[in-house]
């Protein structure tokens, strides 16, 4: 990371108390999108957030998806943009498209018995 946003450092600081923290990363963009690939956001179970993956238009939806990944441990790749059905729910005002990878940072979730 070459920017000042030290999301991994923030996660390392949150991890002892949280046990697990969700990390969302912009992995692909098309057209005009506010944050480049590699931009990151951390989300806790309680809804604490650091960083961003857009200009603010999809953070809420990403934070919701993050709760699921925190519970299951299963990563997700979310697509937002005009060609996606979800665009009508949570579109990008700029008309761009982004793909966001959401993963759980922490010890692996124990398999269900």
């Amino acid at each position: 990371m070459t920017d000042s946003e030290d999301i991994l450092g923030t996660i390392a600081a949150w991890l002892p108390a949280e046990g697990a923290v969700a990390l969302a990363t912009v992995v692909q963009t098309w057209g005009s999108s506010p944050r480049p690939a590699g931009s990151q956001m951390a989300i806790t179970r309680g809804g604490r957030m650091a960083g961003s993956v857009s200009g603010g238009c999809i953070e809420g939806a990403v934070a919701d998806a993050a709760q699921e990944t925190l519970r299951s441990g299963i990563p997700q790749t979310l697509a937002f943009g005009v060609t996606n059905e979800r665009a009508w729910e949570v579109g990008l005002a700029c008309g761009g498209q982004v793909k966001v990878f959401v993963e759980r940072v922490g010890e692996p979730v124990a398999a269900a018995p």
Partner: protein
Amino acid sequence: MTPDILRAVLAARTAGRAIVLATRLADGFQLILPESDAQQAVLDAAAIALSRDESTAVELGGQAWFMQVYAPPYRLIVVGAVHIAQALVPLAAALGYAVTVVDPRRSFNSPERFPGVVRAGAWPDEAMDELKPDARTAVVTLTHDPKLDDPALDRALRSPAFFIGSLGSRRTHAQRLERLGALGHSPATLARVRGPVGLAIGAVSAAEIALSIVAEVVAVRRGAAIAAR
């Protein structure tokens, strides 16, 4: 991401090593490169991302991967522990630059004036030899004193620093270029020195001048049209 991977990424950063975290998006499997064994295609994609300093998505063997580059911060070397430097250092730090203030004058380059800042008290040429500016380093001289600015600029011009700027009026800048030319720098090399440094935003106060300087550093780094001189 396992705690082990997180620790390894943070350790690489502390050590100033550039790495790539490769993630297979289908299942979240991760590798830290170039340190781990991996298929050649993954290693190659990581090497390209590293050389471009750009995180990128790639398709390898029908699978989607993300190559996230974690590189040490860009550096800013400020020569002259003057009033404008006091405004410039926190602005640059907020933008993610690792800042070093160079000034042999102890009354200027003091911990009281620059709390928590990395300071070098050697003569600027020696300090620059030690700091070894690279292509991810910006050098800005602020002293207005040829004894201090010139040796720093001389060393900066012999380095691949991506930004070299110097404070001072147009007249003193012309004189500065003449002196540096006498040290053997060609006109093409001298054209690398941006002087007077700072975007033309009509800056008056120390903080405004500092803002104009960091704005120009950002414009050059990002290849903005406004950076053309």
